[in-house]
């Protein structure tokens, strides 16, 4: 029991670090984007100020319990995802609740938040919320296919469902990273990653030209603060997951930061250059090339790596 409580304590610390890191990296990325756009961009303190401001605001209206549970579900999804990902390899303190089947749990939790959002935003009664959620879920369904195929590919490759073991298998030099051992799966996953991060060309569900920034518009005060916190936490968590699965994990915080930032940059490099696809174009895209690559990666594992 005590050991379990200690684990919760450790996780809280991890949560804090990852959230703060998520906010910081978010500010950094904003500045990089600004640079491309010919601007100086926001100060690093801006995301922190935004969140603090929102948390200290009060609300005087109510849209019903479910509406407010939306952001709660969303952040629960984010926390849940992080809870089962080992953050620093070989460090018991930051290994969280990693266990043998954690990869499945993580993929489940990644969906969980979005579903919560759907329930909450749907409660607002605004058609744009519904449209935004529908688009978000459609696109998610689409990019989950290549992502799932890539995960299956490496599960077969490493013959395990434990993230810790997948990371462990990649230790001993960069040439052991999935990126190099199973580049086909990595390619499929990175394409799915573009959709997952919500940058162009796959940001239709946030498109301000149609559904002014989507469901977050409907929320305010601390609920918006929760959403913003989750955005940072969940974003960082996804990066850590990708780092663990495809880029050899990290043995220290510095390595983690460098690797995650570089992974993040992949989405930005593409994001600033392209307009967004329509939702049907986006779905069609994911179900074509990335899915084919995902299938190929399984074949590749079976035919090349395991033969």
């Amino acid at each position, binding site marked *: 029991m005590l050991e379990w409580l200690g684990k919760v304590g450790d996780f809280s610390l991890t949560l804090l670090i990852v959230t703060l890191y998520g906010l910081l990296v978010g500010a950094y990325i904003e500045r990089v*984007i600004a640079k*491309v*756009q*010919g*601007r100086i961009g926001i100060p690093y303190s801006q995301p922190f100020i935004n969140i603090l401001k929102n948390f200290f605001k009060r609300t005087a209206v109510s849209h019903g319990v479910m509406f407010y549970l939306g952001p709660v579900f969303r952040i629960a999804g984010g926390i849940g995802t992080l809870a089962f990902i080992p953050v620093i390899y070989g460090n018991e303190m930051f290994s969280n609740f990693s266990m043998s089947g954690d990869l499945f749990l993580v993929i489940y939790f990644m969906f969980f938040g979005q579903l919560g959002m759907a329930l909450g935003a749907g409660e607002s009664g605004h*058609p*744009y919320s519904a*449209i935004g959620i529908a688009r978000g879920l459609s696109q998610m369904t689409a990019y989950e296919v290549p992502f799932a195929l890539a995960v299956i590919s490496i599960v077969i490759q490493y013959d395990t469902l434990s993230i810790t073991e997948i990371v462990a298998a990649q230790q001993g030099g960069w040439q052991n990273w999935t990126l190099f051992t199973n580049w086909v799966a990595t390619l499929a996953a990175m394409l799915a990653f573009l959709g997952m991060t919500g940058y*162009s*060309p796959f*940001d*239709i569900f946030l*498109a*301000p*030209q*149609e559904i*002014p920034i989507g469901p977050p518009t409907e929320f305010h005060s601390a609920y918006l603060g929760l959403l913003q916190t989750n955005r940072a936490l969940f974003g960082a968590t996804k990066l850590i997951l990708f780092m663990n699965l495809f880029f050899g994990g990290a043995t220290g915080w510095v390595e983690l930061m460098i690797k995650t930032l570089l992974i993040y940059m992949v989405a930005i490099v593409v994001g*600033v*250059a*392209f*307009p*967004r*696809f*329509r*939702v*049907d*174009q986006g779905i069609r895209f994911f179900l074509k090339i990335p899915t084919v690559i995902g299938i190929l990666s399984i074949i590749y594992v079976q035919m090349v790596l395991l033969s």
Partner: protein
Amino acid sequence: MTLSTGHSAALDFAQPEPPDLSSGKYVKLWQGPQHPGITGNMSLELVLDGDTIVSCKTHVGYLHRGFEKLMERRSFIQNFTVVCRIAVPEPTFNEYLYSHAVEEISGIEVPERAIWLRTMNLELMRLASFLMWIGGQSGAFGQYTVPNWTLAYRDYVLDLFEEMTGARIYHMYIVPGGVRAGLPDGFEERAREIMKGAEKLLDQIERVMFNNVVFKARSKGLGIITPDMVDPYGIVGPNARACGLARDIRKDEPYLAYDRLDFETISGNEADAYGRAYLRLQETRQSINLIRQCLDHAPTDGPFQADMPNVLHWKVPAGETYVKAECTRGEYGYYMVTDGSEFVRRVHVRGPSYTHAIAVMERLAVGTNIADIAGLMVSLHTYPPEIER
């Protein structure tokens, strides 16, 4: 959407099938009046079947400030400070046309220097407006890099306006009788430098926006205007030129110094959003070229204002006139009637946005995806304030 042959396009669209809203098949959606996907304060009442639009109706009136009526209660000199607000991103055309209408009726001859300065001012305005539009078109499809560039660069053009006219947006520079001042010292060098930068920027934009797989995927085939739609719908400007009709008032009925400038009417052959966008990019380059020509030819001394009566009690003789100019969106016209008093009897401002944002938009929107509404709207280049004078 295809047109049935043998019918005029306007008639064909006159009786759309009203969607049965009670069937539960459709969602009704109001895009606007406050909405980032609309170019200003107006509203689109959309009926959706899934993501597809089955009916679109434009609602205006959110921006109505009654300019035409205001002008009937203000003296001829006061009006010129009002009209610039009729098209916020392109105020100069209103100033020019209002002034020109007054001059036509009262028989005032504008001096040569003022003619050149006006021409330059109008072309600078076209450049600024096009830069803003390019950003709008790119942003409507979700590429935010280009808007940041063009809006920032537009500010350099606005710097030129600030130097030339004393204000960035509402220049109030072209006044009945001429212009309010000559060019400040060193303006020509600065203007040339900014033109050079603008050309470089346009090359860059062509590379990243027009040679862009996603931009093409979004804009090609969107909102096709066929040549037989042009006359029934009263489509003008780049929207008409993009489908192959070489109509440009600057060339066809030259005003100001345009008959002495060297340029050709640009017309395209792709009548979709991409074609229109590409045509406008070329026209932006054309404007830069024309500004350079104006800088070359504009006299640097001499009067810039005709002899004027005392404007405090200026009575313009009774008469009527229609004057027009080619703004970025096409023919912009002022119809003015005076009755010999100190006030104008009636002014009718005819901006191209009226047809483009209402009749044309309502038709082109049908059958498109909801995600394309913003891009389509921008590709027609409409300014709601000029719909509601």
